[in-house]
């Protein structure tokens, strides 16, 4: 069984294997297909129309399945690899080991945002940005520039305390746990982290930065923690909602998996701990 660990607790060997598997997917072209898929959904999910990957109840199960696909691809390269998660409410500075040269590398240089160290720096030749929205082909970051602070533990807990999974109109205007975790309303958790990292992470092609997966693995863990805290609440809507994926409707692009199939993460993986 796959166990997803806090990135801060990974051994040197675990970091090396994760990076190696990511680079292998990049080389064989599978990585960029994930970027392309994500951008397609980012551009087509709208508040007033069909919405599946973002700004909708299925934001959480959609990304759970998307991460499962990516993790399985990594494991096809190295079966020992699991997706680590980044608890940005704890490891909240540019000095976190996450950003060291033996893992993801650090922030971008001031002139053009280019990441200059670590395995994903353009100078390695191993990380061309191919699926992109502008002419720049190098990984960029501006850690802490777009917004100064990552969410705090208290802000996370305030969102975890919300009792309703989601609410009408099931989009970026909704009250409830999902939209507050996604960040379109309230203290802003998930969206704010994308902005804090900057560079490609602030764009529709955000999976170009490998931290995308560690960010979403933590968002996914927060869903699991919310479920444990609210055992009587569940995914909504339950049926008959235009443009929105109901509990038992299948999701694009897979068309063979429903939110109902993804509610219990322990069918697929466990976490090192759900206590924090």
């Amino acid at each position, binding site marked *: 069984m796959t166990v997803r660990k806090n990135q801060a607790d990974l051994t040197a060997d675990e970091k090396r294997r994760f990076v190696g598997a990511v680079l292998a997917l990049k080389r064989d072209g599978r990585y960029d297909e994930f970027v392309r898929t994500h951008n397609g959904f980012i551009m087509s999910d*709208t508040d007033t129309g069909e919405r599946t990957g973002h700004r909708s109840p299925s934001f959480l199960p959609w990304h759970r399945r998307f991460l499962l696909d990516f993790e399985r691809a990594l494991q096809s390269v190295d079966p020992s690899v699991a997706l680590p998660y980044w608890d940005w409410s704890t490891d909240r500075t540019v000095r976190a080991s996450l950003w060291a040269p033996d893992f993801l590398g650090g922030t971008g240089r001031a002139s053009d*945002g280019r990441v200059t160290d670590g395995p994903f720096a353009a100078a390695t030749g191993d990380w061309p940005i191919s699926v*992109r*929205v502008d*002419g*720049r082909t190098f990984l960029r970051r501006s850690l802490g520039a777009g*917004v100064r602070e990552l969410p705090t533990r208290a802000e996370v807990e305030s969102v975890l305390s919300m009792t309703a999974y989601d609410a009408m109109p099931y989009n970026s205007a909704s009250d409830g746990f999902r939209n507050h975790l996604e960040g379109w309303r309230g203290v802003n958790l998930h969206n704010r982290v994308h*902005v804090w990292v900057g560079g490609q992470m*602030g*764009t529709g092609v955000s999976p170009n930065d490998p931290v995308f997966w560690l960010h979403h693995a933590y968002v996914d863990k927060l869903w699991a923690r919310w479920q444990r805290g609210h055992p009587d609440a569940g995914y909504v809507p339950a049926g008959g909602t235009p443009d929105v994926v109901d509990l038992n409707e299948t999701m694009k692009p897979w068309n063979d998996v429903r939110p109902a199939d993804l509610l219990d993460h322990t069918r697929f993986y466990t976490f090192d701990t759900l206590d924090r």
Partner: protein
Amino acid sequence: MPELTRRRALTTAAGLTTAAGLTTAAPAAALAAPAARAAEHHHGAPEPFDEVYKGRRIQGRPSDGGGAHHEHGGGYAVFVDGVELHVMRNADGTWISVVSHYAPVPTPRAAARAAVDELRGATLLPFPAN
């Protein structure tokens, strides 16, 4: 031209706030979002715009929703140096673009300016990407 009125109001507000010795960023943001909602909520599309911002031409105009624009059905098109920038309107009237997707701003012009800031001189590629 509600856009000009709003801008003038913002400039004035920022100046007053500065004179009062407070920071300008928070009040400007607080004013801007409701103003945008008020101006744009009742139908439709915001006003067109056409300006040079940081050396680049940014344009915005209502669109018919046809062509490449069907990705989001937004009814409004934004261009940077003639290349269309994918923009989207949120339910609360705020806007995002594909190069600044997780940070809503009050108007499509603000989204275009944010895109120019983010691009730092780089060429925008036509969407859908590649």
